[in-house]
């Protein structure tokens, strides 16, 4: 697509994207909330969008992205939500690429960014460890420099989609003699290196996307270090601001609320005042969160970013998602215990799965309690220990 998408009016842009999406998004992927494109499906999606000129909306053009305004990025998300598209994680495009753009060498950018764009490389994020979750800076996986190589030893865990990934970006300890944040480095590794093994973990939604990743004398060249040695903590924080606003969108609450309404109508509970009063609370929560998100996005488009509110929206959106799936269980009696699609009100999903999919959202990307710590530091000043 040679023309400048940014030059299109919002309506024209929306129409253009919608037309392409409806014509090309595979029907079997139109499963919102509970389905996520993984492995070859994810690769195929990146290839499709890349070929059609829709890949990497938020990336600057100099790196091969679309360089779209935040407004247009949000429009793309809205259309995907409305089309009931499955989720896509895109660890490479969303999490690693901003880091490389900010801290990578020219060689690193030239080597890795194009392969993220065209779907050749799928990445996974290796931060958490068995003993370092919320307290990530305590991580113990080590990398020791040995001539032109780092030798990595240790274990990562909860590495999403590691089994399908081509490469991993890891945080490793390169210095034990300094404050814990000051001895961490950010390193890239190929998943097929000798000594690197992956073991999937079965989760409560019946998926095995989470993995353990073991490093046993894994040897990577020193040019795989991103940013300076021991500066990995700072490097890891280089997320695009825009990404955080799109992440704070109330997409999952909105989609699940519509399912809840399908259930309520299908069970003929529309006149049950007890149910209605609970649903009304959820409706108002959703309405107001959507209003907040739009206003925060609107302010961000004009350059005003409020970090406390961005974190708040993560907390609000994930907890609302859970409250909505809780209510689905509450209204649906024995059907809530089925490991089968419920078939009530045309709803063809399994309620247990919806309930389970909502659980980890309050744990990952900074557990909500940790988010509250961060927000309270911003609102009340740091707590004395």
């Amino acid at each position, binding site marked *: 697509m040679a023309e400048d998408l940014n030059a299109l009016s919002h309506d024209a842009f929306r129409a253009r994207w919608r037309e392409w999406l409806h014509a090309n998004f595979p029907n079997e992927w139109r499963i919102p909330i509970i389905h996520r494109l993984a492995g070859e499906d994810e690769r195929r999606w990146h290839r499709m969008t890349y070929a059609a000129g829709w890949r990497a909306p938020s990336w600057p053009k100099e790196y091969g992205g679309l360089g779209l305004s935040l407004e247009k990025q949000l429009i793309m998300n809205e259309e995907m939500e409305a089309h009931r598209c499955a989720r896509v994680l895109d660890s490479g495009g969303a999490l690693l690429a901003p880091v490389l753009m900010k801290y990578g060498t020219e060689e690193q950018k030239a080597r890795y960014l194009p392969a993220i764009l065209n779907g050749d490389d799928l990445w996974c994020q290796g931060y958490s460890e068995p003993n370092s979750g919320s307290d990530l800076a305590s991580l113990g996986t080590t990398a020791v420099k040995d001539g032109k190589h780092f030798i990595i030893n240790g274990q990562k865990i909860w590495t999403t989609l590691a089994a399908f990934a081509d490469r991993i970006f890891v945080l490793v300890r390169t210095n034990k003699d300094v404050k814990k944040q000051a001895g961490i480095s950010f390193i890239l590794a190929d998943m097929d290196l000798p000594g690197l093994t992956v073991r999937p973990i079965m989760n409560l939604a019946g998926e095995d996307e989470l993995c353990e990743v073991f490093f046993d004398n894994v040897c990577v060249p020193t040019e795989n270090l991103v940013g300076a040695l021991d500066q990995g903590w700072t490097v890891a924080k280089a997320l695009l601001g825009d990404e955080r606003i799109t992440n704070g969108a109330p997409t999952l609450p*909105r989609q699940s609320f519509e399912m809840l309404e399908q259930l309520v109508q299908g069970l003929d509970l529309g006149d049950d005042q007890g149910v209605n*009063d609970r649903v009304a609370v959820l409706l*108002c929560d959703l309405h107001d969160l959507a*209003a907040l998100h*739009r206003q925060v996005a609107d302010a961000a488009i004009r350059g005003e970013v409020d970090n*406390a509110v961005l974190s708040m929206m993560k907390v*609000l959106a994930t907890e609302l998602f859970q409250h909505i799936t809780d209510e689905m269980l509450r209204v649906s009696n024995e059907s809530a215990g089925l490991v089968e699609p419920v078939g009530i009100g045309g709803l063809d999903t399994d309620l247990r799965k919806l309930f389970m999919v909502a659980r980890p959202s309050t744990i990952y990307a900074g557990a909500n309690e940790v988010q509250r710590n961060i927000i309270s530091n911003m609102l009340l000043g740091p*707590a*004395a220990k």
Partner: protein
Amino acid sequence: MGWRVDNELQQMLRDSAQGYLGDAGGAPHARRVRALSDGFDPATWASFGELGWTGVLLPERLGGSELGLEPALTLAEELGRSIAPEPFVASSVIAGTLLSAATTDAATELGIALAQGRRSVTLAWQENRGSLGLPPFVTCLQNGMLSGTKVHVPGWHPGVALLVAAVSATGPVVVLVDPTAAGVTITASRLTDATLAADIVFDRVAIADDAVLLRGAAAEAALQLALARGTVALSAQLEGLAGALWQMTASYMKDRLQFGSRLSDFQALRHQMVDLSAGIELAAASWRAAATALDSGVGVDLAIHAAKARCSQAAQDMSRWAIQYHGAFGYTDEADVGLFVHAALAWSTWLGNPAAHRRAALVAYRSGNVRHG
């Protein structure tokens, strides 16, 4: 869409409001008004007039500044932060909207007096406690006689100008009634924000033709708009109140030491304060969205119900935790917390409480095919 950042006009108004209210408003002023038997301070109302606040929605022909709804809401938010007991919502917003729509001589005269802060004006519309929006009126104007009962008429004091919404043979009307006229019986009650609300019985009260300010479709539209704006403005006041109370509580928590720690260092309390702050962020987002909906005409009912529910709830929640985190001191009349809590009680329950508005929001959502976000 709504805004998070003031435009130039809003910023200017906010600055002048903070300047004036910082000196003349807040808890000391609320205590002074509480000591007045009428719950109304004409001198402060006159100052509001000089500042252009009483006529913020009134057109130039009435001496108003006609700034429009959004700046009026900025003011409402600041008046809420300052727990102003003045009848800004009842008079400047609700009655002001009606007087802007009317063109009779009596309406013009009253509009000018309102813009100057010489009069405050109130609208009697509600006929049963707990009703939301315009009811089908029983109060009736027939052959020049007004009969019926109104409840919870806000901003009551002996000098107030009284507008009454009623039904007539030609549809709804808004009439100006002399509260001292024969056949008018008034029972005023004190509210928790120190103001008075009146229950009023009209028993064949003579109404001159020129006291009918609005008729028919124009009356209906103006009444709808007045209540909608009033509800959004009251929501903004409640959010402002909750935000100020949050800050007051946070400062207290930073000063008060127990167990060798500041209260503000305890994690359980910090997390609760974050959740209360999130509630206030949602409240602000919600009334702004309602103002925008009112402007565009899209999704108005859902947005207004959600806003009043959220802002009322945020103020009530903040009130409870403010008392708790001030400890026993928070339970005293001496602490200013109580003034905020009392104002929150009156404001959050007037024009529909949170539960009623949430129910209405769901009805609007299900009937209107409006999107929830």
